[in-house]
């Protein structure tokens, strides 16, 4: 019996040991290729910055700030190449503003007719009004077919032709044979929601690789040392802890800054955080004065009403009930081009004939058209008007005003995605820093963006950043040392705002900034209006010192985050208006009443022979590089020449400048 018991005890122990157990417990032993909760590696806590704000230090090979289309593509491109990557984002990836892009992606696949990417190159260069860097445009348009096919292989369900190839439609100023062959069909789409599908495809794909996602972490600043970027410092909104992400490579993909204006189509989260981080690091931002407007955006909501409304007979009226377009464009009237309509609307508002309690918008009238015709030609417009404007489109007019849609400017990069500065006449790469997407300015859109080119910009340059990093680095490289108190200034700023006790609220200062920008730096730009705007913006910037916040906590403090976002917006706004005031010409989206023509080095409307080339200081075919002193809000401007040669002159000839006419 004793022997039996002993034997059973032995047997029992053997059975209890984990390796012999059945499948129940195996999951805890098996090594997974992703990590639970998305965080892995050792994070060390230190009080190197302050004892009040303990800092958690993480080390990675690469950090991507922003998880929209460009950020996700860069993040999983890097993970695919084997780099230990962190993706720091203030929103859940599928909530980024890319999800709202319902238009399509342009690519010269040649499914509907014979097509060549060089013709797409020509269209984009012309659309940018010759302010785009032709090497970056060459890179983007040449990679476009491969990028779209890659997305399709990732599972993005593009719409198909009968034969099963991707269906392409005509959109976005695309032509064949360098503008001489008629309309090109290059725009690929996914039913009604291309951006939504793109974002979900990229997010799903990124989960295959072991990218560590830090969701709802607000990136405060870059960690710069000796002109090199060594990582990012961020605030975890969930528990209020400060995190430093040390990495040899940082990619910024934070999107645009539409929220500097009163009326914009962007989400409330489009606050230009990346541009502001770069500005505070002492680096320049490029071409911020180029902002794309649309004439008829619904007042308050920011959704755009299609031009088809005016095409079907809708008219714009002012407070006197007058069809004012007849005065500005006697022949085309309401069907004049978008910039003419936007400027006319703004002039009416400035002259006091706006409608509403603040007299700051005009009406779009559709109720004079027969309701059945409206419902047949524009299905869904009554629903849109009711939901966003609260009006019955068959009885009342829709309140509209010019609305910001896209920011062509951003962080200057070369065609590989590396951030550059311009010193002594040459482009110098900032080591360790990259930018892509709407936050970056490569510059492919130049002075004006063509439709359906921005989704292409996201995927091509997101991938380019990942490829450049993979080419020049190896995974697991040792990081250079960082000062233990790096990021101190950001935390000091955070603390100051958290306990701010001035007299104006964040929302009031923000509204002041938005109204000032909408009145002075919108579509209608002349010298006096812009100068007045610059002075007003200066005083609004100074009013930031007198800000009052209410929430003193650190856990999910939205008052604090909104104020940080306001600081970022303010930096973008001052650069935009000062750069617009300085640029004394009209080019693309930047149109001035007092300088109506483009000022290039030659006058391209006349034959070049016998013309003398204007020196660099006297013409305007150059990029604006703006710097701000964050303490005073003073903006300094420098200029950088446009890159006029493509990557390979034999494969693709550069397009010499000409007058842009459609």
């Amino acid at each position: 019996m004793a022997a039996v018991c002993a034997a059973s005890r032995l047997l029992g122990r053997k059975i209890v040991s984990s390796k012999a157990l059945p499948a129940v417990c195996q999951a805890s032993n098996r090594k997974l290729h992703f990590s639970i909760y998305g965080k892995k590696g050792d994070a060390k806590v230190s009080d190197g910055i302050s004892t009040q704000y303990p800092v958690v230090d993480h080390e990675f090979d690469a950090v991507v700030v922003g998880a929209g289309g460009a950020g996700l593509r860069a993040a999983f491109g890097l993970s695919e190449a084997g780099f230990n990557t962190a993706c720091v984002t203030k929103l859940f990836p599928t909530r980024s503003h890319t999800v709202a892009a319902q238009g399509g992606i342009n690519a010269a696949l040649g499914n509907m007719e014979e097509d060549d990417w060089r013709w797409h190159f020509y269209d984009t260069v012309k659309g940018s009004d010759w302010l785009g860097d032709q090497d970056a445009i060459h890179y983007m348009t040449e990679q476009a077919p491969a990028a779209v096919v890659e997305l399709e292989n990732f599972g993005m369900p593009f719409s198909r032709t009968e034969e099963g190839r991707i269906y392409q439609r005509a959109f976005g100023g695309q032509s064949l044979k360098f503008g001489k062959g008629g309309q090109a069909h290059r725009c690929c789409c996914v039913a009604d929601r291309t951006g939504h599908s793109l974002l979900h495809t990229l997010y799903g794909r990124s989960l295959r690789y072991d990218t560590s996602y830090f969701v709802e972490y607000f990136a405060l600043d870059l960690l710069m040392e000796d002109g090199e970027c060594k990582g990012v410092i961020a605030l975890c909104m969930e528990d209020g802890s400060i995190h430093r992400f040390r990495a040899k490579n940082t990619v910024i993909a934070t999107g645009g800054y539409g929220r500097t204006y009163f009326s914009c189509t962007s989400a409330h989260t489009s606050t230009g955080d990346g541009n502001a981080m770069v500005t505070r690091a002492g680096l320049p931002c490029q071409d911020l004065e180029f902002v794309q407007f649309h004439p008829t955006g619904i007042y308050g909501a920011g959704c755009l009403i299609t031009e088809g409304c005016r095409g079907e007979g809708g008219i714009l009226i002012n407070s006197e009930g007058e069809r004012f377009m007849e005065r500005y464009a006697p022949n085309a009237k309401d069907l004049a081009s978008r910039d003419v309509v936007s400027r006319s609307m703004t002039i009416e508002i400035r002259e006091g004939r706006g409608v509403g309690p603040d007299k700051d918008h005009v009406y779009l009238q559709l109720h004079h058209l027969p309701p059945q015709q409206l419902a047949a030609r524009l299905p869904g417009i009554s629903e849109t008007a009711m939901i966003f404007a609260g009006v019955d489109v068959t009885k009342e007019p829709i309140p509209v005003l010019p609305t910001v849609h896209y920011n062509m400017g951003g962080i200057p990069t070369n065609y590989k995605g590396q951030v550059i500065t311009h010193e002594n006449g040459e482009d110098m790469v900032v080591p360790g820093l990259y930018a892509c997407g709407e936050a970056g300015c490569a510059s492919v859109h130049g002075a004006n963006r063509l439709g359906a080119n921005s989704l292409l910009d996201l995927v091509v340059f997101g991938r380019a950043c990942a490829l450049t990093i993979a080419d020049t680095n190896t995974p697991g490289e040792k990081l250079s040392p960082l000062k233990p108190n790096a990021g101190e200034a950001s935390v000091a700023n955070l603390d100051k705002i958290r306990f701010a006790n001035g007299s104006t609220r964040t929302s009031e200062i923000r509204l002041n900034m938005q109204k000032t920008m909408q009145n002075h730096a919108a579509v209608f730009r002349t010298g006096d209006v812009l100068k007045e705007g610059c002075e007003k913006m200066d005083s609004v910037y100074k009013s930031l010192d007198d800000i009052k916040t209410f929430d003193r906590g650190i856990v999910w403090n939205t008052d604090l985050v909104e104020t940080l976002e306001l600081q970022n917006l303010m930096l973008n706004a001052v650069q935009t208006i000062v750069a617009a005031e300085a640029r004394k010409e009209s080019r693309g989206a930047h149109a001035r009443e007092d300088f109506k023509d483009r000022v290039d080095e030659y006058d391209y409307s006349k034959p070049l022979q016998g013309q003398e080339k204007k020196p660099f200081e006297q013409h305007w075919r150059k990029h604006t590089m703006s710097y701000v002193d964050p303490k005073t809000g003073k903006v300094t401007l420098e200029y950088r020449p446009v890159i006029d040669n493509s990557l390979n002159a034999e494969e693709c000839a550069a397009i010499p400048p000409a007058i842009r006419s459609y």
Partner: protein
Amino acid sequence: MSLLRVYCTTVFVKKGLFLESTYTACQRTAGYASGGVAKDKAPLKKAKTPQGRFDTDEIESKSKDVSERFLDDVNPETKEKGGPRGPEPTRYGDWERKGRCIDF
């Protein structure tokens, strides 16, 4: 015989946890199947809130859905499969959907 029992009990001690969880799970599903406890509880679907300005009857809005699917999701004029619903979005030069301009 006793050895076997000892062997069985030791195995059951570790497997017991696993079995316990499946046993309770069975109990839970068994409850629904027999329809004893579940029927007395309140229905899971929330009651409808009072009708507001923007509320339409569900059936009405479904039939008036502006962008109805094409047959087999194939557009009859352009033969595009899986494309945007409703009229061609680029017909006015910008990308239009439900009266809103999405891209231009």
